[in-house]
């Protein structure tokens, strides 16, 4: 979310989920919304039923794309040229919101200079979509009074992810489609509390509420509150930790409820790192593939066994309530951390999660008014919520951007790190399917969900399948420069010739044996959406 933070000053959904249904134009890019964010898709369907126009940018013909007024089936990785071309058309046709650009933004000239050097026809060829179709989309978006852009990991999981996000922000600012109700730029967060984990400082460079560790004022504030001296050096990112290899920078790891062995790219590297650690502790509710490598595994309580809060994609902080006692001897992660802390001579005395939240409210300004008693009596509060009197913030950047003026940051096309060639002729993208979630540790335990989607399937175009003599359900051997897995084929015209798609939910087909280590330079997001593979029919089953 580094991209939005640079341009707007804050990296979160600018709207509430319910505002989407009031938009006149909805542009969805890099999001398989019906499968990954069903509630958002529901709002989009409602909006379309009420007459809103839907533009979907996706290489695959997803369910949402089928219902779109305009589906731009771009070549994977050509989002930036597309967004730039749309902006150029908006400029050419006088659809830019000049007043908004003048009053609320800065650095417009740099964007404009870049756009005027653009050859739209040439771009359309790179993108793989007729210019006229792009023009139609640009006109619809540019003319809208209220337009929302929803994007997801299809944008960020590229080497140029941050630049693409900035380009989306550029487009929104250029046409004045931000800073209003029912209007804005909405990154959809993949996991239930990914927003909260970021907000709480589960990041190497910031304390809670995005206060940078390398800014002395912030560091001193936390040193005072916690009564210890703190390091002012930003720490390592997840891939710097898990891709360290035998002699990596970390020698011990403590992993709480994550499964990097399945979720991180280049599985062999992650395995090498984790197995060569001096010490690995994992807390989880199940013995995940990662936990199996650990020296100590703590049994954690599930969400139904504890009280606390989650923060959803629209920044809504809401209660998680305990229904039953922790199963067996399991303990909540909070109890585990507190006990370890006590044994390392830093006692943490919290009677309840409400008390922890009181400390958070004191130290994290955007959570300043979040108290459990307030959250109990409401449907949660959306940050920023500065104090007890504040009712929360349904949409961001009213009157001014968080950073003051919105900053245009022009970006240019960067070819993906690895494209298909003679040896590896197919382009592989990875993502999610509707019935499963992340590495499947929870959703695969459901008999019915697993019945609906019980194994990894490789979506492949029937024409490609014909060339490989592969029928629906046949096993394929899929190989990249990094590894090889086998999985069954699902013939579908959702994917085009030369492109294949599968998921990372299933440890039997660990797709991250194949994915590439390339990542975005700024956000450190791995390029999960593009790598080159070869396919071969497997006869022995």
């Amino acid at each position: 979310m580094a991209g939005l933070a640079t341009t707007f000053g804050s990296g979160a959904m600018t709207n509430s989920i319910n505002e989407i249904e009031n938009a006149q134009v909805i542009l969805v890019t890099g999001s398989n919304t019906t499968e990954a964010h069903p509630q958002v898709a529901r709002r989009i369907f409602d909006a379309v039923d009420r007459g809103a126009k839907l533009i979907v940018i996706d290489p695959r013909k997803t369910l949402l794309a089928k219902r779109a007024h305009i589906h731009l089936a771009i070549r994977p990785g050509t989002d930036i040229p597309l967004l730039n071309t749309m902006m150029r058309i908006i400029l050419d046709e006088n659809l830019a919101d000049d007043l908004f650009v003048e009053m609320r933004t800065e650095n417009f000239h740099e964007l404009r200079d870049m756009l005027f050097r653009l050859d739209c026809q040439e771009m359309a060829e790179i993108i793989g979509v007729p210019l006229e179709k792009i023009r139609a989309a640009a006109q619809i978006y540019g003319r809208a009074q209220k337009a929302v852009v929803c994007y997801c990991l299809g944008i960020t999981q590229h080497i140029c992810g941050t630049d693409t996000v900035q380009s989306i922000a550029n487009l929104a600012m250029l046409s004045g489609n931000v800073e209003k109700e029912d209007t804005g730029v909405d990154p959809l967060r993949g996991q239930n509390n990914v927003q909260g984990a970021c907000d709480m400082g589960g990041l190497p460079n910031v304390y809670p509420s995005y206060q940078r560790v390398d800014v002395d004022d912030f560091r001193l504030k936390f040193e005072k509150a916690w009564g210890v001296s703190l390091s002012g050096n930003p720490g390592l990112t997840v891939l710097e930790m898990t891709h360290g290899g035998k002699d990596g920078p970390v020698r011990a790891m403590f992993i709480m409820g994550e499964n990097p062995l399945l979720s991180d790219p280049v599985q062999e590297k992650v395995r090498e790192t984790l197995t060569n650690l001096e010490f690995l502790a994992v807390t989880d509710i199940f013995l995940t593939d990662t936990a199996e490598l650990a020296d100590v595994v703590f049994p954690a309580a599930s969400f139904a066994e504890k009280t606390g809060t989650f923060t959803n994609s629209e920044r809504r902080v809401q209660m998680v309530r305990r229904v039953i006692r922790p199963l067996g001897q399991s303990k909540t992660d909070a109890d585990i951390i507190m006990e370890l802390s006590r044994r390392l001579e830093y006692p943490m005395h919290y009677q309840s999660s409400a008390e922890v939240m009181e400390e958070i409210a004191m130290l994290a300004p955007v959570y300043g008014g979040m108290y459990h008693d307030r959250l109990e009596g409401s449907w949660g509060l959306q940050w920023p919520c500065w104090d007890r009197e504040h009712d929360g913030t349904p949409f961001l950047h009213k009157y001014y951007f968080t950073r003051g003026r919105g900053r245009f940051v022009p970006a240019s096309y960067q070819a993906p790190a690895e494209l298909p060639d003679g040896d590896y002729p197919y382009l592989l993208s990875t993502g999610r399917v509707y019935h499963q979630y992340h590495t499947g540790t929870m959703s695969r335990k459901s008999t019915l969900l697993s019945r609906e989607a019980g194994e990894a399937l490789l979506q492949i175009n029937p024409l490609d399948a014909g060339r490989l003599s592969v029928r629906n359900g046949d096993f394929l051997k899929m190989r990249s420069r990094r590894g090889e897995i086998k999985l069954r084929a699902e013939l579908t015209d959702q994917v085009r010739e030369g492109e294949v798609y599968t998921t990372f939910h299933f440890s039997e087909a660990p797709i991250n044996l194949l994915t590439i280590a390339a990542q975005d330079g700024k956000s450190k997001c791995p390029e999960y959406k593009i790598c080159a593979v070869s396919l071969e029919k497997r006869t022995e089953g």
Partner: protein
Amino acid sequence: MVLIMTNKYILKKDHLVPLLRQLGKEYQLVAPLENKHGDTLFTHIDNLDNCRVDLENQPQNSLKQFFFPQQEVLFRYRNQPGVSYEFEPAKSREDAVLYLGVRPCDLSAILYMDVVFLKDFKDPYYQKRRNNSVLVGLNCNTPFDNCFCNGTKSGPFIDYGFDLQLTDLGKYFLVESDRSRGEDILEKLHQFFELATEDDVKDQYQAYLESRGRFKRQVHVDLAMKNLAEGYVADGVWTELSERCQDCGGCAYICPTCVCFSIYDQQQSATEGERIRCWDACTFSGFTRMAGGHNPVDSSIRAIEQRFRHKLQFDVKKHGRPSCVGCGRCVEMCFGGTDIIRFINMACCEGM
């Protein structure tokens, strides 16, 4: 509808809670309660003085989950290889449960479940809970936004199927009984009830007439049933609906008459396990998939078709009634607008 003159009584509204307190001595009580979050759900009453019985709003759940839970352990098994198999039936609740505020749609749905679970094969789990139940109905004076029980002939008033039934006449409830268990209550707790007059019965009929005029939607269920039976529903209808369906299964889960289920064994250890029954939905592709991968309902288009034909055609043929009671719960909740009202409206446009 013909109102048969039976013994009818009056219950003062002030006396409802005292009556429930007395009933609570003999029965577990379940009623629509408005909780602290503002949602109204059929809920077990733990403490009558610390809950708000809500007879104004439609409970978001039906009574289905009380008779046919979403997940239920049927029995536990133990296998000592070569020695023995042991089966231990799951403990089920023995106590009698009184359900208050059962509107005609939900009552009608229970009568449909009776057909499925008790008519030919008798499901012991359902039977036990059903035998232990007392249903206190509530006629609907004000249909809700998506209600169409007038189209399915299951409301807004109903004159059979309940043990006791209340009709709100403003100052008090008119009380009727249809079965001996209701009669017993009237007799045992006679101090709460006084005989109704002819005028009260006329007021009830007036309330019924007025309620019929308050439906906000015109849903021609009979016409859709006819068009389905006569083959007038074009394939395009199913295609469009299936493109809207996001496969959540919510319509089946929330539906008071959808009773499809799945059964699976959950192994606990090498020698022990549980056999579990859980709700299922006919729109899920795995619901009809056969061993070897063939699926007779081979696409989401056919799955949607199956769902609506089952409700409005097959059940009409088999049981003489649609398995839709017009409660409207599946309507606004549908993610893609694949709901039954949209289907009925689409089906009515054909052949007209």
